[in-house]
């Protein structure tokens, strides 16, 4: 639970762990190799709180009693052996309400204290650890929260500061502990200042300094007296930093008597991390972006003025339209000097091959479609707008809700509406935020309610365009107005975890939901992963041309999903392919020996799907051989087993999942599945397929490598189920680009899109098409945030950075010079020739 260093020659670590059955264990771990030096077990059902030490003893602080009326219990242990020396209960009355009331447990200092308040935050009770007495101090009127700051060095004087926050301001009171008598006395108090602020301690030998960061000042105080040692105005630029919590380091300048240098790192109320050096902002870091829970790509909204004036021109008579246009162009002339100004910079940067940064902060779409925004919501309730085309510059940041300490914002869905330029974020507790994409201005919001009502959300097509709808906890959506009801079937999870297909039937102005099908996995199977098609899944060609010029037609049913269900008893994984309109099972595959405790993930795109898991089994066709490792199964879906055949559907222009054609075999037209399994060199998670505008570019499977902290782009060419097994490809197959099957796919470092950077804890990867066909925009979030552009078939439609413009221009100039030099020579020669020829 808590970690504290024990101040010994070798700094060992004390760890307090809460185990099941109310048992708590305190372990002293060797700082060099993490082995257990000793452990102390407590089997009483007390709530463990913290561990603390002074020089010779270890204190374990528990809450003893029943919920709402606790007493503090302190167990005193010997530092060297971990044997219990003493145990005491502080106070006779049960006056501690819960864990949150205990403000502070000091550690490592000469006199560690424990402090707690009553529920109304009126009195503060302090106990010096190791003694039984406690002292009470009244808290200032209107206090809502209390923090205590004390030095963490044994040599430092045992002084501490009580930081009490009111609704509008904050104040501090400094107390001294008498080491001999263990009596706590109040030394001085600091004035109430408006706004939030932070205190931090720093000790230099015996001296203890307190650094106070308010909204506009950095103040340095000594613990001895209330005299201000130094004060610096805060220069944090245009960003208003309201520090919430900080740490500081104070250095007394040698030579001069009362000259100090202070640097303080603080967390601000916008989840940023700033370092303030003598009042000046040294750096700031958007630490709040860790813990992303939802993100989406959004186009930069186009300038509405231009669209409006163009529309206007189309609707008035030609002469007026002409005058209007001329006037508009004359008006545009005012931007000409600025444009001419920027020309040299643009030319130089284009020759150097660097991207032109749009430093003026204006958001403009570019012709390649690289300039997009990413809207990222974090679990701490912050929303960020990032400019993808500008190395992820933060365009805006907004706090959506104040999220309580210990809880997190459970975002279920996010959708960017291109037509209105707004982003909708739906949370689990009936909350929503609607904000503008380009400025982050909140248009509408509803704070989270007490209960989680939402199972998930889905982006559906409605009569009024695509919409994000909320799905209730047991898979019910409820009645919706006709214009907002989905026009397709929606797949939800039922109360028992089964899958349901829900359709909406309009009746008057309201649409009512009805279940069209349900799919329950067989007894003992548990659904672990569901993959659906990306909303943008362009398919360039309906068939694959084989080496012998025959065509295998792809099975391109847009209403399919992949479902992975695992049986925990038999370790069997079953992967189902379902038709979402009819609930029909299109294909199924079973894999034995799959570890359900390791990630099992699927992805589907175009006419293929992949599933990755850890498998350990013997081969079906040769049971003597066994396979073990992280595997990926790729399956291609075709309309028919044979080439040049369109299967039971033939050339019919339409098909229906609900009314299957009368095939010879009967039933629905089932796809022909070709599968192959590969063994991966490392586990993968967060699967995502790259998306491009037309789908002509070959695809890559993007996957996070949790062990080596990178994002790999596995080419689809490698993950090809038709690779010939056990023989070299025939010339026809080689022409198709098929390589010989090799079971292992090692992660090629050149295919790692994060290169050498370590990206930690990626939860999801999202992809979006750019305007140019070759490129797909990629954004990964989780703990770290990472964005890039990938070109699976290389940059075939734009000039790469490697294109040497200097060489091109140089060659042209050299050629020109050569022509100029040679032309008089050639002319002279030709004239000579003419003359001699005539003779």
């Amino acid at each position: 639970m808590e970690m504290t260093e024990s101040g010994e020659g070798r700094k060992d670590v004390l760890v307090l762990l809460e185990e099941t059955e109310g048992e708590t264990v305190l372990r002293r771990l060797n700082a060099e190799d993490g082995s257990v030096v000793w452990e102390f077990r407590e089997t009483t059902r007390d709530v463990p709180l913290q561990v603390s030490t002074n020089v010779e003893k270890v204190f374990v602080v528990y809450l003893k009693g029943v919920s709402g009326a606790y007493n503090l219990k302190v167990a005193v242990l010997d530092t060297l052996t971990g044997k219990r020396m003493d145990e005491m209960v502080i106070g006779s009355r049960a006056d501690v309400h819960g864990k949150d009331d205990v403000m502070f447990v000091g550690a490592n200092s000469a006199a560690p204290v424990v402090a707690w308040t009553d529920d109304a935050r009126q009195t503060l009770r302090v106990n010096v650890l190791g003694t039984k007495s406690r002292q009470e101090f009244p808290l200032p009127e209107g206090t809502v929260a209390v923090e205590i700051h004390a030095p963490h060095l044994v040599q430092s004087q045992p002084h501490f500061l009580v930081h009490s926050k009111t609704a509008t301001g904050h104040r501090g009171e400094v107390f001294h502990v008498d080491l001999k008598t263990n009596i706590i006395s109040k030394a001085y108090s600091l004035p109430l200042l408006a706004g939030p602020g932070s205190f931090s301690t720093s000790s230099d030998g015996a001296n203890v300094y307190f650094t106070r960061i308010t909204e506009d000042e950095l103040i340095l105080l000594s613990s001895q007296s209330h005299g201000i040692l130094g004060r610096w105005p805060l220069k944090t630029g245009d960003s208003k930093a309201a520090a919430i919590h900080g740490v500081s380091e104070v250095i007394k300048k040698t030579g001069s008597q009362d000259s100090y240098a202070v640097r303080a790192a603080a967390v601000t109320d916008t989840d940023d991390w700033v370092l303030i050096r003598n009042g000046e902002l040294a750096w700031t870091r958007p630490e709040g972006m860790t813990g992303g829970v939802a993100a989406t790509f959004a186009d930069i909204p186009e300038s509405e003025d231009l669209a409006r004036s163009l529309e206007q021109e189309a609707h008035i008579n030609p002469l007026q339209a002409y005058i209007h246009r001329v006037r508009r162009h004359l008006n545009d002339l005012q931007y000409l000097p600025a444009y001419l100004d920027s020309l040299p910079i643009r030319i130089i940067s284009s020759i150097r091959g660097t991207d032109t940064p749009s430093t003026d902060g204006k958001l403009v779409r570019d012709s390649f479609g690289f300039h997009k925004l990413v809207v990222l919501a974090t679990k701490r309730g912050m929303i960020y707008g990032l400019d993808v085309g500008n190395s992820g510059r933060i365009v805006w940041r907004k706090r959506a809700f104040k999220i309580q300490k210990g809880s997190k914002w459970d975002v279920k869905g996010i959708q960017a509406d291109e037509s209105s330029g707004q982003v909708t974020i739906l949370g689990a507790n009936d909350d929503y935020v609607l904000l503008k994409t380009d400025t982050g201005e909140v248009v509408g919001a509803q704070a989270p309610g007490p209960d989680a009502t939402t199972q998930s959300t889905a982006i559906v097509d409605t009569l009024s365009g695509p919409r994000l709808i909320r799905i209730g906890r047991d898979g019910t959506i409820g009645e919706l107005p006709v214009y907002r009801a989905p026009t397709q079937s929606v797949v939800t999870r039922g109360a028992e975890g089964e899958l349901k297909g829900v359709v909406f039937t309009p009746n008057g102005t309201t649409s009512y939901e009805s279940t069209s099908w349900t799919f329950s996995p067989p007894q003992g199977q548990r659904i672990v992963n569901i993959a659906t098609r990306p909303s943008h899944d362009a398919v360039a060609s309906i068939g694959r041309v084989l080496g012998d010029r025959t065509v295998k037609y792809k099975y391109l049913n847009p209403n399919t999903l992949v479902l992975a269900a695992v049986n925990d008893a038999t370790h069997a994984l079953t992967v189902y392919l379902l038709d979402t309109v009819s609930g029909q099972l299109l294909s199924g595959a079973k894999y034995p020996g799959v570890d359900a405790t390791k990630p099992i993930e699927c992805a589907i795109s175009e006419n293929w799907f992949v599933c990755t898991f850890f498998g350990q089994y013997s081969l079906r066709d040769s049971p003597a051989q066994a396979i073990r490792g992280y595997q990926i199964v790729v399956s291609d879906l075709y309309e028919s087993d044979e080439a040049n055949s369109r299967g039971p559907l033939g050339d019919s222009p339409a098909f229906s999942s609900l009314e299957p054609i009368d095939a010879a075999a009967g039933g629905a037209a089932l796809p022909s599945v070709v599968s192959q399994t590969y063994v991966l060199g490392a586990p993968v998670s967060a699967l995502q397929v790259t998306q491009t505008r037309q789908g002509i570019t070959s695809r890559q499977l993007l996957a996070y490598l949790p062990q080596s902290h990178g994002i790999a782009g596995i080419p689809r060419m490698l993950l090809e189920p038709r690779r010939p097994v056990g023989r070299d490809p025939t010339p026809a197959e080689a022409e198709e680009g098929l390589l010989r099957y090799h079971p292992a796919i090692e992660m090629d470092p050149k295919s790692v899109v994060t290169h050498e950077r370590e990206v930690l804890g990626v939860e999801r990867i999202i992809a979006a098409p750019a305007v140019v066909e070759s490129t797909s925009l990629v954004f990964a979030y989780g703990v770290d945030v990472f964005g890039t552009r990938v070109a699976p078939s290389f940059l075939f439609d734009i000039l790469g950075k490697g294109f040497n413009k200097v060489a091109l221009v140089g060659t042209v100039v050299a050629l020109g010079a050569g022509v100029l030099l040679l032309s008089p020579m050639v002319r002279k020669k030709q004239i000579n020739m003419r003359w001699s020829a005539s003779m």
Partner: protein
Amino acid sequence: MQLPSLLLSAAALLGTTVLASSAAHDRQSTTTTTTTLTLRIPASPPVLPNPHALPASTRATLTALGAARAAPLSAANTFVFRDVPAGSYLLDVHCPTVGVMPLRVDVGLRANGDRDGIGKGEAGLEVEVWETFRGGDWGNKGAVVPVSAGGADGGAVVFEARVVGGREYFMERSSFSVLSIFKNPIILLSMVSMALFFGMPKLVENMDPEMRAEWEERQKENPMNAVMGASTGQGVNPLGNFDMAGFLAGSSAKADEGSGGSGNGKGKGENRKKR
């Protein structure tokens, strides 16, 4: 002044207790039949001369069905897996800079045996280690990795991993250089012919008059005369006296060619006479 010395003595005292307690810990673990495995990364000169240069995020995983253990890189370039129960495991080292051969680790699967390269772990659990091939049969074991007893705790086993290669994340971008153009054989050939084209007439002009006369006599006898004459630029262009109108009118082209060839020689002779 007294404080540091006091601390030192405390540390010394602590050291003895650590040994005692770890021994106690070992005794405790014998009842649960587990062992401690230590994997060491040796210095492998061409790729990794100094294993201390490994990034701190390097970690090793021990996986089997239903088991997953991970160990961070220690300061001594080892990965220590504690309390490993009997079983057959896949051991991978995940490192962003070097590739390491995956290993198969069998703990306590052999009943008895004292072959070389088998380390006795705690509680009589025998540890065997082989290199394994990803995607290959699990029974197809590679080279045996020698296992020795020892390590940080008494009774643990130590074995070494094999570093197989560095990991290159970047491709060198081909850069343009003028020299690369001249390395092209086609360019070289055309340059040689260009040199001939421009250099020959100069050579001929600089020749001694008698030598030149002799050379030209030989040129006349040469059947390639016409061709050479054209290429050296001395004679008349064969197309120079090509009569298009006559050709279109259907006059004999062969006769023209013949006269052109002989006229060529004459032209040269006349040229010389003029000078």
